[in-house]
């Protein structure tokens, strides 16, 4: 288990505030720190601001008419807020966006190759990595020549993951990697994350709704609620927290209960009511 205190902090988000369209305040002071070589999970309900946080880090907010109005984002101690997203990728930070965002008209293979856009280590290395991605997702190999727009939802999700892996990044920001994937693939994705993390020391920051799996693979977790961090701690500790258990893992003291039985409404406990 990786100890956050002992390793270097790679990414540091200090008390950022994000506003969309000049009027909609979404993040109200979020701070995180992502240690080098760690897997950090960002958890929280719909609209908590996970995606927004990731986009703030990768500087994709501007294209959504959002902006970071307060706070700072440091990557290896360097302020990266005003950097172009492309430069950030060159620095080794890449994001897998929520909702797949494949290049519809490009083939699956071309999609994967765009991931290698910033690489300069030669065709051979790229070809090798392409094979690696195909070995992770054999399904993609079968569909390599078809346009990404015509592949199924899950296949597109694989393309998005594979594309990020193709860039050989130092840090990957993953936004809901498991969405729409079949169960065994979900496990597999996280296995890949783990393998890449351990084998190559790639750092991960992932936003995930599948709390169960996420907390199993992550080292550290943050829980967001309507734009604020309401709880954080080592994954192990979070897993055992009773609130987390109830609201995020769907477990009560007497184990998992059937979805059929939750027919009456339970008011969610708000940390910040």
């Amino acid at each position: 288990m990786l100890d956050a205190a002992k390793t270097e902090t790679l990414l540091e988000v200090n008390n950022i505030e994000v506003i969309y369209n000049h009027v909609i305040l979404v993040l109200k002071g979020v701070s995180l720190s992502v240690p080098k070589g760690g897997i950090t999970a960002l958890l929280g309900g719909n609209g908590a601001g996970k995606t927004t946080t990731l986009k703030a880090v990768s500087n994709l907010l501007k294209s959504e008419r959002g902006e970071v109005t307060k706070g700072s984002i440091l990557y290896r101690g360097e302020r990266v807020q005003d950097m172009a997203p492309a430069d950030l990728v060159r620095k080794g930070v890449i994001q897998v966006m929520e909702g797949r965002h494949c290049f519809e008209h490009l083939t699956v293979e071309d999609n994967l190759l765009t991931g290698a856009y910033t690489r300069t280590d030669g065709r051979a290395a790229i070809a090798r990595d392409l094979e690696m991605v195909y070995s992770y997702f054999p399904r993609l190999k079968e569909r390599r020549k078809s346009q990404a727009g015509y592949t199924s939802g899950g296949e597109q999700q694989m393309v998005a993951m594979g594309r990020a892996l193709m860039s050989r990044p130092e840090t990957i920001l993953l936004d809901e990697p498991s969405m729409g994937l079949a169960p065994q693939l979900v496990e597999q994705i996280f296995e890949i994350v783990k393998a890449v993390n351990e084998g190559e020391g790639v750092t991960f920051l992932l936003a995930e709704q599948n709390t169960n799996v996420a907390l199993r693979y992550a080292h550290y977790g943050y829980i967001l609620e309507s734009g604020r961090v309401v709880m954080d701690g080592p994954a192990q500790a979070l897993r055992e927290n009773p609130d987390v258990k109830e609201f995020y893992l769907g477990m009560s003291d007497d184990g998992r209960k059937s979805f059929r039985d939750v027919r009456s409404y339970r008011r969610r406990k708000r940390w910040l009511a």
Partner: protein
Amino acid sequence: MPDQLLFAMEVTLNGLMAGVMYALVALGFVLIYKASGIFNYAQGVLALFAALTLVGIQQGQVPFAHLINAMTGLHVESFGWTVPSLLAILLTLGVMVLLALAIEKLVLKHLVNQPPIILFMATIGMAYFLEGFGDVMWGADIKKLDVGLPQGISETVEGLTDSLFGYGFFIDNLDIVATVVAVALVTALTLFSQYSKQGRALRAVADDHQAALSVGISLRFIWILVWSIAGFVALVAGIMWGSKSGVQFSLSLIALKALPVLMLGGFTSIPGAIVGGLIIGVGEKLFEFFAGPLIGGATENWFAYVLALLFLVFRPQGLFGEKIIERV
């Protein structure tokens, strides 16, 4: 051979040539559309601006002379030198690159991830601006453009066909040059977009700005590159059309001749521009030549569009355009 057939052949040939001229303009549109999904309304004005700049540089005009004179009461007109054509073309190219830089910095950068119609509108703003700017910079009078391209009937073709069919065909030398240039351009651009890393990036950008950003494609770089190339294509089109008619405002209207070509060939296909051009060229010329006299003539403007429309009804993405992906 019967006369009608000979005439038809001649008209067809000339239609092909006209089509090449249209294709030169259409190419600029295709490039930008392909690389960013922007329908660049300003392409025609870009051609005008390039041609104005070329002539201005060539003839040693003082830029903004009129403005300077009006503000200061001076009477500056010309530096009194002339610049050799080739050098002038290179300098103009430099100006077009600067323009591309400015467009990226001042306009496109701020409109990342906006819907196509908004980007289209922005290019309209740029067209207005450039039109005014070109006029202020170089004046609105008509200018003769001469970079030494041959013009007039090609004696070779006329002689050759005369000995073959007993009737000499008319082909304009300028058109022959245009054909050569167009073929070279199309080949080079196709290779570039098909086989280079940048080519793939262009198409990625056109599909999804945000995703392109997220994989590290620099929109800035791509856009400057593409607008520079489009500027170059505009310059070529400006030279070809300007040699015919002189350089003046109307040059910007050649864009209207390129639109049906674009639509028929497909907005995203470089070879489509040339094929579309040829079909439109031949189609409208033959129609005007044979049907025109029966229904009063001047049909070319609308016929080109109607022809393209008919094609579209059967292939909504044009002949070579990327298929519109319809999925849920």
